[in-house]
């Protein structure tokens, strides 16, 4: 790390914490490039189905590599790196254990490599979405989370202030809850036939809502006040969103299987709590947006723009999830490409933009090096325009697909009608991937070179350290 060669900059963080944060970010970025390149191949296969006809490049194998890769090899370690940094800095202390952090990162990468290779050879855990990695691979991942929880708790336990900063509620809670999610999904005894449908409904949504959502919100609660140099609008609103998200989210999983043979009351319960989710979603989003109000001059050319996109995607994507869960709209959208657009609005527009906002805001503070505004801007616009094209094309196309089915058209008509939307999706995906290349370049500058971070004091009122 070269920050020590730049005396006069803001006080650099202790080298160990910086190295850990940078390593998690770099590792995650490598997987982002791989997993989204795979995503781009998948998108093109909808328009050119005979592109790369070989077992290792087949759609059915690559799809799980894309989803699991983006979930567990990109977004997870990137958010864990941010969580470790936020835990140490907000506690005014160092990291509890660098060894735990290194072992956890190594385990995540071992899991990602084993999981990806096995999937490409055709070994998956039963086409169960987002848990296709073989059971022992997911056990390695779960163990890495146990080490991470230990490290995070050890770090905040030695904090200076009496209060536990809100970010840590979200991030450490996410790690602890997700250990439970992974274990529930691993044990086989109650996953037979329809029983597995129920567990899959539970898993699909809890893996997202109890893991990525609270981690990303935890990053917002730390990075946004830092960037805008003002406290979060309402600490209490953040606490309300924390507890309501905790209680409402675990109950809505069955909405992935509406009109299925799952018990009707379970489906109804899932719909009710899908609507209840508006409370934490609107509460949380309003909190961030009200923090940003009137701060246009600070938002401009700031990583806060990534957070703005992230908050809006969180608001729209989650509200969209609520609407999709209504029985009157399910017949139009369920099982169509609309759902894929929804997944990308949330996992990309919300979670991935949250990571970028966090990395651009905090990594330069750690390393003392930053990427030029122009490069960050190019990344921002490529990814933003790309994801808008992606989500819009699949939302419109998916609606047409559902309406084709409803008017009783021959099935193949719904395939033919999708062609232009699939092409636009691939174009949007291409822009997104180009953005990732720029992001990787920017990460390399923030870690190994680039401009010296300005010495501007970003100490924010109401945020520790």
């Amino acid at each position, binding site marked *: 790390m070269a920050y020590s060669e730049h005396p006069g900059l803001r006080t650099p963080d202790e080298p160990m914490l910086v190295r850990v944060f940078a390593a998690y970010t770099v590792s995650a970025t490598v997987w982002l490039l791989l997993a989204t390149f795979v995503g781009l191949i998948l998108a093109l296969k909808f328009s050119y189905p005979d592109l790369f006809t070989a077992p290792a490049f087949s759609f059915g194998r690559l*799809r799980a590599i894309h989803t699991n890769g983006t979930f567990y090899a990109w977004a997870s370690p990137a958010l864990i790196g941010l969580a470790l940094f936020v835990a140490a800095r907000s506690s005014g202390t160092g990291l509890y254990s660098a060894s735990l952090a290194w072992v956890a990162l190594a385990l995540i990468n071992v899991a990602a490599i084993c999981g990806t290779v096995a999937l490409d050879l055709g070994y998956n855990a039963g*086409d169960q979405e987002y848990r296709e990695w073989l059971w022992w691979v997911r056990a390695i991942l779960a163990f890495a989370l146990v080490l991470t929880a230990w490290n995070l708790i050890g770090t905040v336990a030695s904090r200076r202030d*009496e209060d536990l900063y809100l970010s840590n509620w979200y991030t450490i809670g996410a790690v602890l809850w997700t250990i439970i999610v992974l274990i529930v999904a691993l044990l086989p005894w109650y996953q037979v*036939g329809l*029983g597995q449908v129920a567990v899959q409904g*539970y898993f699909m949504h809890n893996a997202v809502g109890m893991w990525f959502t609270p981690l990303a919100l935890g990053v917002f609660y730390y990075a946004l006040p830092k960037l805008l140099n003002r406290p979060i609008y309402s600490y209490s609103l953040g606490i309300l969103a924390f507890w309501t998200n905790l209680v409402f989210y675990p109950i809505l999983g069955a909405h992935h299987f509406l009109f299925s043979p799952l018990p009707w009351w379970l489906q109804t319960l899932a719909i009710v709590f899908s609507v209840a989710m508006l409370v934490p979603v609107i509460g949380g989003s309003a909190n961030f947006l009200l923090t940003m109000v009137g701060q246009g001059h600070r938002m401009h050319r700031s990583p806060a723009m990534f957070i703005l996109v992230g908050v809006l995607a969180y608001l729209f994507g989650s509200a969209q999830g609520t609407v999709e869960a209504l029985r009157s709209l399910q017949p139009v959208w369920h099982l169509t490409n609309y759902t894929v657009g929804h997944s990308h609005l949330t996992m990309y527009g919300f979670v991935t933009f949250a990571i970028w906002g966090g990395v651009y805001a905090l990594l330069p503070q750690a390393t003392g090096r930053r990427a030029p505004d122009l490069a960050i801007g190019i990344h921002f616009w490529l990814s933003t325009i790309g994801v808008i094209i992606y989500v819009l094309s699949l939302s419109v196309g998916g609606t047409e697909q559902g309406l084709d089915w409803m008017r009783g058209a021959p099935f193949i008509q719904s395939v033919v009608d999708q062609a232009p939307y699939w092409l636009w999706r691939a174009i949007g995906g291409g822009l997104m991937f180009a953005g990732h290349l720029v992001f990787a370049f920017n990460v390399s500058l923030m870690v190994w070179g680039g401009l010296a971070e300005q010495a501007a004091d970003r100490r924010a009122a109401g945020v520790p350290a």
Partner: protein
Amino acid sequence: MTAHNRNLVAILGGSTAVYLALAVMMGVLPGIWLSGTPPGPGVAPLTAEQAAGRAVYVSEGCAYCHTQQVRPLATDSGFGRPSAPGDFAYQTPQLLGSERTGPDLTNIGNRQPGTVWQFMHLYQPRSVVPQSIMPAFPWLFEVVDQPPQGESAVPVPKPFAPAQGVIVPGARARALVAYLLALKQPAWPLPAAISTAPGASPPGAAPAGFDAAAGARLFTSHCAVCHGAEGAGVPGVFPSLAGDPVVNAADPAEQIRTVLHGRAGKTINGATYAGAMPPFADQISDQQIADIIDHERSSWGNHAPLVTAADVAAQRAQP
């Protein structure tokens, strides 16, 4: 533990305890309860070969584009009766699916029972359905000089066939097709009063007549995968319907009986065809069969007398 960390334990321990309770309530308990769902009437476990085929289905990720769940919605009625809990008793891993880029496969064994079509379609979907975007699975097949004794080659049309040799299904392709053909919903015993059994005309239906739009739509749904959207078929596998003597015959009896009961091994104009046609008697109504036949009899240069639902009913009544 210091007093300093009491709030840490309260927040993280409390929320984790709440979450553990919810995870058990919404994940584990429904799992335990529903794992014990008994098989429905007529639901049987798979044979060893079908189970091996199901493993191929999982391994190749078929479930990402094909559902195996029929919802109680009009949208899904073409795929079968609504799925019931007992249908899934022997289905682990569950393959209900979350996307329907391709059609639902709950009843593919009824809809598409011909092994020849299945093999051609797996080897290269676009050899039978030009608009299909399904991946081709040539690695489930082998290229040989001569098919083994007693077996026949997969009749892949020229543009898709290898330059040298012929295609024969490998063990994995045979197992997969055995599994697909086993995908048939056991029928539901329904009270006669609300019977929607195929064959019965819907109550209050308009008098029999040729609805050209319905005929074209039904043909696309039920016939075009083999006979082609333009009725051209696949030479040597699925007969062309354009100019076909049965389709153009003044007496529609043979055509009606072919649609009702299926057909295999028929020689037409001196050519034999490898594909087998499934029976449609139990799948669609007399009116729908009449609409399909009338579409065939008035398209692609065919000009033959039209039929009515009553004609179909008359043939259906005969043994």
